[in-house]
């Protein structure tokens, strides 16, 4: 792989099985994927189709059963500072205050305290956590904790940000702000983002490209380009009134919905769980 390739992340012939007590379980189908630098890619797909598995493989926590993953021209063998992760589960440390959680990555990198404090203060303001800097996570609401997790990853300033449904537990109002901030921030800093969500609106709003996965074992069944974000940012007001955007939303929604229904099942029915498992 030559280092000058425009693709920041390359997933090649990826396929993953989990070893369980009852033998191997296939978590994803065959996946090939290229994400150019500074692209914002969102991934939607039915629950259990393997989204988190793919993300964890890119992060370096899972060694692919088949295929390989290349970031910045280097094959991924483990986690690294260049790829920040916001996990689906809450993953901030209960024994650190908000301030020390957000500054943790900088602390590890040996950034001097004064500079660290400045960065933390900026992110605290950005994520609306002012006044809570010295609280412990259990003293915050669920949404606030998730904002701490997002801020911690941003503070470490990685090139690639991998996010697994980061806003699922955040209240609707804050979510809108965070999404707008994320869109403009990642654009201006030219971050490469891989973002998993269940919300079609969110996926289209944030993305340069939306990927749709089929149900387990999931493959990438569609890739939809979203016209370049103008002037970097987006806002929900213009998004909801933009017919082009709404058309894309509808298209993605249709693709996702198709996945949820088997040929046999009628609309509105949930697929037979036994059938899905086999």
């Amino acid at each position, binding site marked *: 792989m030559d280092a000058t390739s425009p693709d920041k992340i390359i997933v090649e012939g990826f396929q993953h099985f989990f070893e369980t007590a009852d033998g191997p379980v296939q978590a994803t189908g065959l996946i090939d994927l290229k994400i150019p630098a500074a692209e914002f890619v969102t991934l939607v797909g039915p629950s259990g189709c393997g989204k988190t598995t793919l993300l964890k493989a890119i992060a370096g*926590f899972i060694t692919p059963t088949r295929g390989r993953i290349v970031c910045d021209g280097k094959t991924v063998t483990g*986690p690294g*500072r260049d790829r920040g992760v916001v996990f689906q589960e809450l993953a901030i*440390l*209960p*024994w650190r205050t908000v301030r020390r959680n957000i500054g*943790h*990555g900088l602390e*590890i990198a040996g950034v001097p305290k004064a500079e660290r404090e400045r960065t933390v203060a900026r992110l605290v303001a950005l994520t609306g956590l002012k006044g809570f800097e010295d609280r412990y996570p259990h003293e915050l609401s669920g949404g606030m904790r998730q904002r701490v997790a997002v801020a911690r990853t941003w503070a470490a300033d990685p090139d690639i940000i991998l996010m697994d449904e980061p806003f699922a537990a955040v209240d609707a109002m804050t979510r809108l702000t965070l999404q707008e901030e994320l869109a403009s921030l990642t654009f201006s800093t030219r971050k490469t983002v891989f973002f998993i969500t269940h919300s079609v609106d969110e996926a289209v709003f944030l993305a340069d490209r939306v990927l749709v996965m089929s149900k387990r074992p999931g493959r990438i069944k569609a890739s939809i380009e979203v016209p370049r974000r103008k002037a970097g940012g987006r806002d929900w007001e213009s998004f909801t009134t933009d017919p082009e955007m709404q058309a894309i939303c509808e298209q993605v929604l249709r693709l996702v919905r198709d996945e949820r229904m088997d040929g046999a099942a009628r609309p509105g029915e949930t697929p037979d769980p036994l059938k899905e498992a086999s």
Partner: protein
Amino acid sequence: MSDAKPVRTDTLTWKLLPALPFVALIAGWSIYWLIARPPVGTLPPAWAVTEALWQLAADGELLQNTLASLGRLLLGTTVGVVTGVVGGFLVGLNRRAADFLNPLVVFFNAISGIVWLPLMIGWLGIGTALVVFLIWNTVFFLVFQNTVLGVRLVPPVLEQSVETLGGSRLHIILNVTLPGALPYILSGIRSGLGFGWRALIAAELVGATVGLGQMIFRAAEFHRADIIIAGCLVIGLLGVLMDRYLLAPIEKHTIERWGLVTPSRGI
């Protein structure tokens, strides 16, 4: 049952209720003693126990024995905690070692503590070394097993998240695994201290020449029931005080502050 009406806690009855069984016990004891007049060596009157306690305290015997016991407890528990935590981390972080050692841990845990007394008397002789060994053996397994459990139960995602921030293995062990396992470690230390104290008394009954256990065992030979009861009161009181003023505050300042829950213990 618990679907009963709410309880009024501001009444005098409610406030005095905890004293009731103690008062009843002492009253029943005194009445029995006044009517039946059992030999003092078998059952002394309640006031004789206070007298014995005073006597023991006055001639320094109580202090000497208490200090001997507490010193052994401190030594045995410290060694037990250090070896238990270190061993627990090594094994908790290493699946293969854990799988290999597990059968041994199960077996030696089943014979931990006092069961070693006969063998160890031969090796270590009667005295502090023997008692300290038995305390260590009791404390070690409680701390070790709790540490292994605690290390295992730290959510992997916490460790992974710090790994993505660039944290080294050592950084993660010290900043994530250790505090994450702390509730279990502390709970192990807490019950270790409780059971170590019990093991100490049992060990001292025959395995020492001074100490609270030896004091009450010798009193049995001389039929001094008053000294035994006084000794038991001191033993119980010290056990409760250590738990309340030594370990409970540590939990309050760490795991409660962090909003983690204390894993429930037997009692």
